[in-house]
């Protein structure tokens, strides 16, 4: 499902070149729930961004869902992201001026889905994360755990093959973190969605199928 071959990423200023990832190889089969761990600045988020096609590698090849996507750009990459990928962020990134259900509908807006169908799919996704009773609330009226559940509903509403979660439990207490992990595990098991999760929490990582460790931009296990 996800194939990264010899991926390197460097950031260049006038005087300094920083290597974020070095010759990284990673293969994630369909249906796997993979966690990535490592100290701050080791390149976890960069790796996730490259998998999510929101950042480009300096070197290497990326293939997602059986397609070579390294050279995708413009509207092609946007369409691919929209159809194949779902994102979950540590800080939720909900739009406070939109209701919960409108936030969940967001990915479908860029897929030319009718309003009625959007609403049906959004409510279905909210039902799956146990928040259908909060559909018309606004994000400011929700707890952190609820916000992250909305973000998960938003990530799954378009039925993507891959979900990329960047520290989804990082801003939550352990109880709420467990709840979020349960939902992600269930999605993985019930829908067969491939999930790649970056985390700092060893306990959460242990709940996934496989753990990959990074250090200084290199894979160490």
């Amino acid at each position: 499902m996800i194939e990264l071959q010899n991926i390197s990423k460097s950031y260049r200023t006038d005087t300094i070149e920083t290597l974020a990832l070095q010759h990284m190889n990673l293969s994630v089969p369909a249906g796997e729930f993979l966690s990535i761990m490592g100290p701050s600045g080791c390149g976890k988020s960069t790796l996730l961004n490259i998998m999510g096609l929101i950042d480009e590698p300096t070197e290497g090849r990326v293939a997602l869902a059986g397609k070579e996507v390294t050279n995708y750009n413009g509207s092609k990459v946007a369409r691919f992201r929209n159809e194949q990928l779902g994102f979950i962020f540590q800080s939720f990134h909900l739009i406070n001026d939109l209701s919960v259900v409108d936030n969940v509908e967001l990915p479908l807006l860029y897929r030319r889905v009718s309003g009625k169908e959007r609403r049906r799919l959004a409510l279905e996704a909210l039902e799956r994360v146990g928040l259908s009773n909060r559909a018309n609330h606004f994000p400011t009226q929700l707890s952190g755990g609820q916000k992250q559940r909305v973000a998960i509903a938003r990530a799954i509403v378009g039925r993507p093959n891959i979900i990329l979660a960047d520290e989804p439990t990082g801003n939550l207490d352990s109880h709420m973190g467990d709840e979020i992990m349960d939902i992600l595990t269930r999605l993985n098991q019930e829908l067969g969605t491939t999930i790649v999760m970056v985390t700092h929490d060893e306990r959460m990582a242990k709940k996934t199928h496989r753990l990959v460790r990074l250090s200084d931009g290199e894979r160490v296990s």
Partner: protein
Amino acid sequence: MLSHLLKLMWNKRRANGLIFLEILLAFVVLFGVYAFGFYNLDRYSSPLGFSYANSLGVRVDIADDLDSLASIELQRRMVREVGALPGVASVSMLGPINPFGGNTWRTGSDDNGFDLNTMMVFADEHFAETMELKFRQGRWFTVADGAGKYDPIVVNGKFIDQYYPDRESMLDSVIQINGEKKIVGVVEDYKYHSNFAENMPLTFFTQQEYNPDGTDPFEQLVIRAEPGRTAEIEEPLYNLLTDLTKNTDVVIWNMAQDRIKANRPVVIPLIILISISAFLLINIALGLFGVLFTQISHRRAEIGLRKAMGATPVEITTQFVLEILIVTAAGLLLGTFFAVQVPLLELLPIPDRFFYLGIVAAIVTIVLIVVLCALIPSRQAARLHPALVLHEE
């Protein structure tokens, strides 16, 4: 997408209140300026009906103690001798209503149930030639007309169009205007107040109407000079007229300059209004720029999120332009509601079409400015890198 943006803008209505008010205010001002401007442009574009080029106006003071015969003779002498001056092409005498003079005489009469209201101009038999009036029908009155049963008059086209629209010809018809008068000619427009004056029903009368007993002579002349010779005839003209009238109270003016002065009461307010509008539009443009840049800097994460969710750069640009257009549309809708009340309730004596034109022009101007101002910040937003902005918080 539109319903999504409508919802978003409704939920952000407080934040967008100021832009809404700004648009509404700009619309109201622009609507007024455009309606006033179009109305006056229409007036300006309709012909004066006479020529002011190479023309001089002159006012003399004829002694009160002259009897009627002597004053009439003096008038004739003035026309004759001024006409003989080198460089003078034509000369005419007229009563107190001179082109661009600012005076108005009106009269109203009942003509067999018709209520005829007309402006009055008194002139001699040379006036049409000197002013180069254009005739729709008939001719100017002559000295011989004075011997007829009815005093001759010449009316303008507006007079016929307003009071006798169904009559094929009113030539030689006798109508009641301050007594029985015979129409001998119909001229086209005669807007003597200024280029911006309304073309009103108007009647030219002979000196007989102005001064039946002959004791009150015409004291104004219009002189058409040969092209380019107005300046050179002023001095001999002054000398001749002071000599003939035995009075130094002779005032000469250039009719082209008089026209500019006569237009000022409209031109100056129009320039002021256009300047205020331009200043307002610049302010709106700068305000919108500022507001959009601020909004975009506050919404960087949202932009990154939308891009991560599959929005293309074009969709991001379109979203921000549409957002501001939605607020603009709300301001314009309310503004249009107020603006249409002006023609519907007939609040001002201006034809309705100018208000509707003003509404359309104000909407087009504001939408153009808004789109232009929104494009640069919106395109900047579309270029934001999602990987960067999503990790800024």
